[in-house]
């Protein structure tokens, strides 16, 4: 496995974030100081402007006074239930998408309901990379109407989404449909870290946590086809975090 310089790669995310969303404003509603602290730092590092509220009341005041691009709301607030806060904010006319953080064991139906309304949720503990990816998704959904490309290009790698054909340089890669989907997902997130659970959820459509290295073997095989000898390796493994497709 290739372990590239971790710092450099994650640094890449930050810059990617900065380039993509210029000064996005987030409201973080979280009462645990430890979590609040590291989230604020990491979000700021990723190029977001973050306001923090420690309880529902403060959050309500902030959200109704200022227009945030995304709200990150923890469900277990000291003064009220996170879902009630979200519903209350919706009533007040706050339409920003919400990323729900839940320490509850099962995702209850109310959260699912919100998810269908365009919001998203993450269960604790989560990978930072996944939090950032979901944030980007929400922001993209908000911007929406962005014409989805039919051809993805990363370095000399090219994916034709209509013909389901992948090529590197002049060489056409023979990929299975599964491998193509995997590579497509990596390309769409080129330069950013994707975690195993993100791949499982997005490529295979399941939120599971296998305690065997099933995803790693898929990546290993894909790498064998994409990063052939004599070419610059594109797919990097960030141990403990996930993978990244190098975009420069």
């Amino acid at each position, binding site marked *: 496995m290739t*372990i590239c*310089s*971790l*710092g*450099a790669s*994650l*640094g890449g*995310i930050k810059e990617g974030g900065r380039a993509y969303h210029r000064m996005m404003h987030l409201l973080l509603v979280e009462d*645990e100081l*430890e*979590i609040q602290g*590291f*989230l604020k*730092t*990491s979000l700021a*590092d990723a190029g977001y402007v973050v306001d923090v509220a420690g309880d529902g009341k403060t959050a309500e005041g902030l959200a109704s006074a200022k227009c945030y691009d995304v709200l990150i709301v923890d469900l*277990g607030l000291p003064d009220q239930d996170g879902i009630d806060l979200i519903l209350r904010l919706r009533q007040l006319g706050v339409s920003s998408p919400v990323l729900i953080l839940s*320490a*509850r*064991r*099962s*995702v*209850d*139906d109310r959260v*699912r309901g919100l998810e269908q309304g365009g919001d998203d949720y993450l*269960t*604790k*503990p*989560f*990978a*930072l*990379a996944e939090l950032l990816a979901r944030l980007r998704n929400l922001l993209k959904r908000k911007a929406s109407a962005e014409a989805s490309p039919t051809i993805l290009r990363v370095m000399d790698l090219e994916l034709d989404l209509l013909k389901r054909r992948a090529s590197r340089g002049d060489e056409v890669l023979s990929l299975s449909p*599964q491998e193509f989907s995997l590579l497509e997902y990596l390309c769409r997130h080129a330069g950013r870290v994707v975690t195993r659970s993100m791949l*499982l959820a997005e490529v*295979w*459509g*399941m*939120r*599971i*946590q*296998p*305690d*065997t*290295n*099933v995803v790693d*073997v*898929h990546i*290993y*095989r894909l790498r064998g086809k994409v990063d052939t000898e004599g070419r610059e390796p594109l797919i990097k493994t*960030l*141990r*403990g*975090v996930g993978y990244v497709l190098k975009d420069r």
Partner: protein
Amino acid sequence: MSSKTDRVRMRSAAWRISLGATLAFAFGTSLVFAGLHRFVANDIQRRSDAWLSGEVEVLGDVAERTPKDRLYGRVVGEVAELASKEVPDKLGSGSSENGSVFFLQVGRDGSSQLWVGAGNGQANLSAIRASKIKPDVPFHLQVKGFDIPFRVASARMDDGSSIYLGLSERDELRVLRNLRIRFLSFGLLIILFGFGIVFYTTRRMLGHVREITEAASRIGRSDLSSRVPTTQYNDEIGNLARTLNTMLDRIESSVHQLHTITDSLAHDLRSPLTAIRGKLEMYLSSGVRSEHGEPVVSAIDELDRLTEFLNTSLDVAEARADALRLSRSEMDLDELVRVMMDLYEPCMSESGLRMQLRSAGAVRVYADAALIHRMVANLLDNELKHIPASCTIVIYLQVEKDVATLIVEDNGPGFAAEICSQMFEQRVKGEGSSGHGLGLAFVQAVVRAHGGDVTASNREEGGARLTILLPCALPNRAEGILPAAVMAG
């Protein structure tokens, strides 16, 4: 489907009860009627006997006083004829001509001296001779040539002859027959009416019971918050419903308590885990060199395993208490297993294992997708961890009578004998197993929570077999599921 058979069963229970009640009612009424019939018959007989005795006395008197000359026959005959016109309970006219009454005087030598009635009286005479006669007590006489018996009273004359006055029992029998016909028709009507009422009432009652049963089983399967329907009556059924609801209140509150405990436990553990994981990730991203990052990476891995362990433990604990929260939707097991096999195939072939699926097509179940995903992943993880290279895993998928069967077989070493009996216990694992011993306990928990069953055994040919039975769907969703035969997939 099952609610339909329930309905049939209930209907037959109502049917049985009404049939029993009706039979008892019919039996009782028949007894009463038999008594009544007997009483009426006796009364009629007593009245006709009294008439007979009176008339025979009068006739005897007349016969005695009338001189035995040529006119004797005519005089006694006229009197007898007259008497026959006063027959009690007479129905219709001209009964004497039809032989409803006869008068016979028999001489000392036993020959017929005088006969008044239909025919020549020979048959009557021989019948009287053949029967034992108690003097002064009317008796029963069956005469040859007559369908209907006679009631006969006798009197002995001073000259040694006997006179007999016979009255046909035809009228008596007719009265009794009428009584019987009326009773039968009225009785039948009443019984039918009673049957109708009993059937309707029991069916209504059992209908309530059925509603309660259906509601209770629905509650058992899905949500604890709904209640069985109650009636406003304070009868047994109403009490049953109220008692069930009180019981459900208690169960709901203890389940709720369990959820609160597991939720707060999960919350209290997850918050620090989140903080630790986040800080480790931040440390990684702060530009450490890879050799320094290695311990952090493995710490993150360990944290993820700990989280998974925590989730699974709590799921198993909740499932053991029948309190696992399911969020069901319709899903296709066949599709899921295929996707899972795609996911696991590279990993399996790296380990030198082969996988085969034998399924006939879509297997729709109404289940919690997330839990079923984790369950199947668990089964495959289990295989991956426990069987040696060059083994084959065969997955069978089939539907039979609304039960989906998922069988996972391998030709590996099979389950170790010492853990075979307690395979599904938490923390039980084979020697040298690296897992945390929750895999199969979790599988069982998920299957049970869905109302299914799981069994583990060793195959005769060697290797392990896990059989999972899952009910296909909720009863009202059972339509459109076709049973599929096992075919090579």
